[in-house]
């Protein structure tokens, strides 16, 4: 048993930390204020990241690498691999800026989906694109099985009709992985995902959302009107097998949920570290003691927040570690996301409060982090959905029994 980060990951953590500090932080406020401006500064950074990954002996890191199996193994067979490495890097990037981390070219959620279920031919064709993920619709968020976008077979094509909202990188990405149903009457088993390249006739980016936070990330509404897509663009198995159901698509989320948890940890770490620094400047004693009732209230509060964040971090590392070791981790991934989502939000908000009107103003980034953190407890499965998933596992209940 050992709960420290392996030394061999120090370089990637260090690298990501430098990117956060030298590339992201200097432009953080700029793109928070200019919500729909394209962050050109990220193009060069993305090329560097591509270069790093293509040359990486150990399989690289990033959205498209999560299913990769190159890892460090010890004599007992224990592995620390791509899931943990990607998580650690992402935490650092999000310590810089969550919105910008979500806007790195070729690091979309769609890329994770492609990596998880694409055939070799699909990987060859789409492996180097920037793919967004389009699932949510105006009438279907948490209940993703209720989506109404259809994909109708027509010769060598599928025709897609429907409207998708809240698509992260929906405008900037050059491809979109779209969830659509082959047959609404057959329920979730008929839901498949399709890669639709930008420029395909019938796909229109209709609007970009104005948001509370992560304003550097473009969030798009995309309409599909008789959009013809080659049948080779269906990801995974075209057969509708009722028993297999949703499994393939949802499996991606077991790997990506810890990453979203990581984002929450990153932004919370930023807030806590900065608040600690500002409060230390007041001369308050911030030392750790076992009996904390005699300490200043702010000291106790900072340490409680730090303890909660540490809990989120270790739960998330556990989920990534389990993924690297091939252990089913659906419950643990949800526990990580639930904990990190809620404490990330609570910490960023409390940090603003602890710093008074300085924390509240745009002079510091604290108020921005408090706005950015909220979405992390919502997208990729809300807090409540995570608690539901966990409860069903613990209580051994189906979705019909425990709603």
């Amino acid at each position, binding site marked *: 048993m*050992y709960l*420290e980060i392996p030394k061999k990951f120090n370089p990637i953590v260090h690298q990501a930390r430098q990117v956060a500090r030298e590339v992201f932080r200097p432009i953080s406020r700029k793109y928070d204020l200019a919500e729909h401006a394209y962050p050109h500064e990220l193009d060069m950074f993305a090329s560097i990241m591509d270069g790093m990954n293509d040359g990486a002996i150990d399989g690289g890191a990033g959205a498209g690498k999560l299913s990769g199996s190159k890892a*460090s193994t010890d004599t007992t067979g224990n592995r620390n691999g791509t899931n943990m490495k990607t998580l650690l890097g992402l935490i650092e990037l999000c310590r810089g800026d969550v919105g910008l981390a979500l806007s790195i070219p070729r690091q979309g959620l769609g890329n994770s989906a492609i990596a998880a279920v694409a055939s070799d031919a699909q990987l060859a064709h789409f492996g180097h694109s920037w793919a967004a993920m389009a699932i949510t619709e105006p009438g279907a968020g948490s209940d993703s099985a209720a989506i109404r976008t259809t994909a109708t077979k027509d010769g060598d094509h599928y025709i897609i009709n429907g409207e998708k909202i809240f698509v992260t990188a929906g405008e900037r990405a050059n491809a979109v992985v779209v969830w659509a149903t082959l047959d609404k009457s057959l329920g979730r088993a008929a839901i498949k995902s399709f890669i639709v390249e930008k420029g395909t006739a019938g796909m229109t980016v209709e609007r970009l959302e104005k948001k509370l936070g992560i304003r550097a990330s473009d969030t798009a509404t995309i309409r599909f009107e008789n959009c013809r897509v080659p049948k080779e663009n269906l990801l995974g198995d075209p057969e509708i097998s009722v028993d297999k159901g949703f499994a393939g698509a949802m499996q991606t989320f077991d790997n990506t949920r810890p990453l979203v948890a990581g984002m929450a940890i990153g932004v919370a770490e930023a807030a806590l570290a900065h608040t600690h620094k500002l409060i230390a400047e007041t001369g308050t004693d911030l030392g750790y003691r076992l*009996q904390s009732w005699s300490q200043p209230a702010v000291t106790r509060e900072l340490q409680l927040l730090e303890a909660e964040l540490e809990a989120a971090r270790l739960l998330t590392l556990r989920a990534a570690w389990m993924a690297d070791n091939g252990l089913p981790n659906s419950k643990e991934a949800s*526990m990580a996301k*639930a904990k990190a989502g809620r404490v990330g939000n609570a910490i960023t908000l409390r940090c603003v409060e602890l710093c008074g009107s300085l924390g509240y103003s745009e002079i510091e980034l604290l108020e921005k982090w408090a706005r950015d953190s909220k979405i992390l407890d919502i997208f990729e499965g809300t807090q409540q959905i995570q608690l539901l998933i*966990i*409860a069903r596992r613990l*209580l051994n209940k189906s979705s019909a029994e425990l709603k």
Partner: protein
Amino acid sequence: MSRDPVGLALSAMTRFAANPLLDRLGLRSSVEKTAYHGTRAGFRTLALAGRGFNRVANWLPRKQLPEKAAPDLFNLTLDADQQMIVDSLHRLAQETLRPAASMADEARAMPAEVFEAAASLGLTLYAIPSEFGGVAETSSPVTSVLIAEQLAWGDMGLAVALLAPFSVAQALSLWGTGEQQSRYLPAFCEEHPPVATIAVDEPTALYDPMMPSTQATPTKSGYCLNGLKSGVVLGAESDLLLVSACLQGKPRVFLVEAGLPGIKIEAEPAMGLRAAQLTRLTLTNVELPLDALLGSEDFSFEMFLDRGALLRCGLATGTAQAALDYVIPYCNNREAFGEPISHRQSVAFMISNLAIETDSMRLLTWRAASRAETGQSYHREACLAKLLCNEKAMEIGTNAVQLLGGHGFVKDHPVERWYRDLRSVATQQGGLHA
């Protein structure tokens, strides 16, 4: 607060009602007759052995167990030895501790058979280097934490009592001088080891264990101890007590053998941990020799307390896990409005959060213990683990009662006892050392 006429009347009535004359004159209904005073155990309890310890002429040099080398990788699996310890202690918890717990709590006493069953597992041997009769090869706070988890899964009150001598052995192994180790450690490896305890807590609000009011005044032959200690586990049954006191402005620990003049021990029952027979210790001019001061220049009282916190966090995690394991089948079986209550989100979510926070406590504790085991700094991690456990352990305790509704409030189910025991996580600092 000043009393009005009604208040005065109520006060007089209460005093009148307590008057034994009422009973003699048959004026109190039989229902109101007091139940029983003191412990009517119905089982054999521990007794003070009254054993002494021999100063040896040729003592062995101090033996500090070496730390483990830090592994390369993050890893949450237990090694074979640890798994074996966990498995056998889980069995002990299930088969011996759990069945005895309710009775022990009611009687406010530790059943001797339970104590002997645990002793036969040789727990304390894990704390002691082989030079002194034990089996420990490396310092292993992680193993201590795992032991605490399993025992507390059985029952926290019994666990605290069982871990009291273990903790003293750990403390002597880590901090003791060669003479102190030679004098005391072999006794812990015998067939009938001594009962021993660590006295840290004192009965004042906002007590800071780093600043005990108990004073150790230097004398010609050693030290003179004066002060009050509270919540001392198995105080009346202990042959050896480690007592924290302030020596020239700094907190230190003193080895106090039972029976010295000036020591008064009284039962001090508390909200929970009732089987652990907590006591109040009054020290009045207790004379101690020079070598009663635990350890030498490298003794760190902060680290001494941190080790206690680690073990306490292990206990908290174990009892929290017990609560989680108990409420799941209960809520799946309990029906209301036509279906199991576990089908309601409010119930289901409470259980999800119980699991999240139990795992959170466990991981923070494991990390702190693992750092201690591999010679890394762990004060920050121990403080954070303790802080989290202080908050979450009680939250879990109160929610476990809530999930059982009215049935959670009565003694037919163990959750009300776990509620009372879990409150101790944040209040007690003594009795434990990983």
